[in-house]
């Protein structure tokens, strides 16, 4: 990590931050507005991946490997979350034959 590829320096760090923030906002909007469980789940993945992008960019600029190690942790755990999440969505689909979360309103008060 002593030598950062010069290619990173071509793009200013602010651009990475702005791009990641835009991706993150798209993810949040997706979670808040979409009604399909799968698409909400994809939006959450988008949020996590924008975080990955931000970590990698900062890590390269600071010549510090910790950020990239963190990205591996995020990827591994996101995969675990997807495994559990898709299983839960399949369980719901078997019962109500749809993945539309607005139908799920048994619990309220």
């Amino acid at each position: 990590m002593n030598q950062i590829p010069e290619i990173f320096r071509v793009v200013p760090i602010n651009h990475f931050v702005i791009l990641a923030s835009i991706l993150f906002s798209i993810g949040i909007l997706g979670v808040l507005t979409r009604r399909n469980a799968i698409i909400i789940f994809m939006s959450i993945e988008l949020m996590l991946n924008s975080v990955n992008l931000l970590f990698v960019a900062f890590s390269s600029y600071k010549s510090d490997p910790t950020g990239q190690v963190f990205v591996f942790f995020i990827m591994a755990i996101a995969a675990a979350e997807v495994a559990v999440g898709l299983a839960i969505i399949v369980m719901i689909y078997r019962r109500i034959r749809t993945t539309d979360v607005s139908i799920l309103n048994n619990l309220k008060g």
Partner: protein
Amino acid sequence: MLTITLLSLLGLILLFVGFLNNIGLSRTIAVLGLVAGLGSMLFLDQDILTFSGLETQLSFDSYAIKFSSLILFLSVFILFLSGKFIKKDYVQSAEFLAVLIFSLVGALMLTSFTHFITLFVGLEILGISLYILAGTDKKSPGSNEASLKYLLLGAFATGIILFGMALIYGATGSLDFQAIANLGQAKIDSSLFKFGLFFILIGLLFKVSAAPFHFWSPDVYEGSPNVVMLFMSVVVKIASFAAIYRVFGNYLNNYSFFWWDIVYYATLASLVIGNLLALVQKTVKRQLAFSSISQTGYLLFALLVIPNDQTVNGLVFYLFVYGCAVLVAFSVLTDWFGTDPNVKLDQLKGASKSDQMGSFALTIAYLSMAGIPLTGGFFAKLFMFTPAMESGLVQLLIVGILSSVVGATYYLRPIINVWFSSETPVLEKGNSYQWIAFMAGTLLLVAGVFPDTISNLIALI
């Protein structure tokens, strides 16, 4: 690391013991393993067993040991209470126990992290296990729905926390809490750092279910099986409070001028919303869910005052008393109604006629949650209010005291239903968990009459 390793092995062993199809054996192994874990947490040096690279990222200091021992102590009884639920034929008992143990590994990491990576991994081990546990009652639509809601909102909150971590990493170039706690002024002033703190705080408030980020918790609590709701409102509450206090009370307290106001308003909102909405609930579990939001409000007092050992001990005392009270309530409910997840408050009417002891324990539990003197809840609230008074948070104290008065009215409803009703209820009349109710109820009384014994014990660890 020793206890964490022990529990991880215990989880794996339980998965294999599951092949024998012997629920009693699995549960005995799980309980013995947890007791061994509690013993190793209290009496052995955690650093006997470390893994290279991790020794600087998890630190079992006295703060971590206090919270971890409390978590392990209460989860032993939760495991006993799970007996009736895992005997249902469509519940996978071995997996249920193993996932429960794995989630405890995450909970212990949340009490002892010193690095962003361990905080994140702990949150996710606890979170992912809970998504599964919430959905274990596969035949119930409520359980399915709770599982999905918890998954989507929990993952959402994790995403927010991660974004905050990335921003702080960008601002400071470090992911170690101690390094971030000792920063120069120039780095603190950057907007990246402020936004980072903001996102982490919002995400953690979400995880402790403080209002206005509480909307998921009543639904998830109501839909989950009873024993899982007990687990969430006891163990998960302790673990997430250990985490939020460790981040903002221990490490980032120097920067309290950034986050103090947000926590202050979240505290006010939790007290008001939790107590007012609990007034209109009709089922026992939903009432307890809103009561748990208001308890979050009282617990957040600890973040608003000057951090010292006394505050930490008060926090542990409060969580201990609250945990015991919920434990009593659920063991009595399990005795009376089995695993029925939708017990109405009206169904409690006249229960004292068929089970005096249980009704008595339930009364103590609810009185303690309301904070009536002679029960532990009174001193728990007192220990929370005293530092706040010393810090001069008068308005907050007034709201706190008024909302505990409102709280007392709805905590009295189940008590009135149990004792003063002419109806005769339909109860299952099992006495299998009476000993848990009796023991935890005694602890509540001890904490109420001799609070010094318990608080000295906590200070000793």
